[in-house]
């Protein structure tokens, strides 16, 4: 059976694939961008630290619609980022997959940064100093000492960003809308099914998401226990 027939056979599959794709890309971006940010937060004595830390944590407490609203304004064709994007590419960020990735990165940022920051803080500087006196440059010490010793933090950051992005609704609805194959994510598909009283279809998707969320959290806790035991 080709992908085409699969999708026509079960239209929600496109939403499922899209959600996973979004979560994977967001997680990748966040691990790359969130690591230096978390490192800075863990080590800085700057007076801006509390402010930056609060900004990073905002998505945890803000209603997703508030974040979604501001992101919509920011990414829209007349917004700061959106207008620049239109000039650069000719297309708008809002109601596009790229716009969703940008929005998700903001929304899931604390779920990547906080576990990493915690891991870096609890590691302290002792082993790093030892590595430096043994001839390791700062980046060398980071990759040979900090990364392996912070493995549980990286795993937590990865799982939480992925799972959190997979489950988001308010922000993506505001920024992405409901375009099948482009911005119609699994959570939006579930909402649609419920609206149209198609509970059976909603059940299938909701159960898939529930099962998956439980599975990756379980994997994380099992692995983290093992990693801690070895460290």
């Amino acid at each position, binding site marked *: 059976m080709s992908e085409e027939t699969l999708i026509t056979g079960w239209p929600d599959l496109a939403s499922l694939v899209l959600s996973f794709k979004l979560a994977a890309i967001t997680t990748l971006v966040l691990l790359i961008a969130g690591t230096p940010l978390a490192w800075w937060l863990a080590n800085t004595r700057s007076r801006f630290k509390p402010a930056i830390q609060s900004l990073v944590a905002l998505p945890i407490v803000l209603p997703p619609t508030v974040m979604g609203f501001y992101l919509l304004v920011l990414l829209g064709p007349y917004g700061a980022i959106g207008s620049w994007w239109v000039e650069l590419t000719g297309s708008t960020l809002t109601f596009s997959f790229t716009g969703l990735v940008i929005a998700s990165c903001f929304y899931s940022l604390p779920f990547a940064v906080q576990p990493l920051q915690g891991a870096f803080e609890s590691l302290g500087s*002792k*082993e790093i*100093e*030892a*590595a*430096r*006196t*043994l*001839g*390791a*440059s700062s980046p*060398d010490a980071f990759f*040979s*000492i900090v990364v*392996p*010793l912070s493995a549980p933090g990286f795993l937590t950051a990865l799982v939480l960003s992925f799972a959190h992005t997979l489950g988001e609704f308010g922000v993506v609805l505001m920024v992405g809308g409901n375009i099948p194959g482009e911005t119609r994510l699994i959570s939006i598909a579930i909402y649609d099914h419920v609206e149209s009283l198609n509970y059976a279809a909603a059940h299938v998707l909701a159960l898939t998401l529930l099962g998956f969320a439980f599975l990756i959290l379980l994997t994380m806790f099992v692995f983290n226990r093992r990693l801690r035991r*070895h*460290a």
Partner: protein
Amino acid sequence: MHSEPQEQHRLNIRYALKRAAFSLDVDVEFAMRGITGVFGPSGAGKTTLLRCIAGLERPDSGRLVANGSVWEDTDARVSRAVHKRRIGYVFQEARLFPHMDVLGNLRYGQKRSTPVESAIDLEQAVALLGLGSLLGRAPATLSGGEAQRVAIGRALLRGPELLLMDEPLAAIDDARRGEVLPFIEKLHTDVGVPIVYVSHNIDEICRICDQLAVMDNGRISTQGNLQTVLLQTEVACLSGREAGAVLDAAVESYDSSDKLTHVVAGGSGLWVPGETGPAGTALRLRVRADDVSVCLERPRGTSILNVLDAAIERIQKESSGTALLHLRVGSNVILARVTQRSCNELSLSPGTNLYAQVKSIAVRNSLG
């Protein structure tokens, strides 16, 4: 980099640094050979000094020249990065990398260093520090003494031109110190790497160092040859209960029936307990001021074996009603602590000839 010949084998340190409740202000030259002890009470700034030499901390102003090359010069805005200073650093805690086994730890520094002639290889380090049975072990399974030996090996395999040791025995319980100290002594004789050894334990210092700098309140109060510095009893931390002299001696003969060894130090014969090696073996003796008493006449019927002809060089009164006598014995000077009342009753003064009774002598084995 261009280097002046007179700067070879020298470590020139000039640092000024201010922290909230502490300031460091030193201007000192250490020999880049042998073991230089840095001794002083906790909080004196010994660790900060060592961290500055390593580059782990930056002075507010200052200059550091090692073997003729400039590692730090705040005026010229020169500061060599930590990993580019060829040092080995042994911390108070071993700081082994928990995600690597012992072998991985040992190789970490070695892999990151260009091979140099003076460096020892893995096999030598393992043999020197007795690490053979530990190579596959995880750091978490090692005893404190074992872990610190691995840390020393790891630092040595970096091929350092200077080894910095910051109270390497402080975190190890007394019973296990013996698992490490002899190995540190061997570093000096077998590897020849110069060591700066920080400690607040005068016994350790006396046992292994040949140069000594005393630090107090962020400053170096005195510095020089170990024997000479130990006699500067005006320096607060050298005048307390641990005041004493260190003598270099050589074994002459062993009396197996009484289990005593006769040794000669500076022309005077002494008996020390136990068998300490064949004739000619170099020994270091430590004689604490509290273990020496004096008599104006040669004592008779005393249980004390070591009674030495001595002359008072000077008398230093102490606030506690005691006095430290500096006694010339042959070519050495030892210290004796007596009460000021005894001083007066015996009319002791510089030049007085008398007999020193040495109640106990601590013997350190050869430093080669």
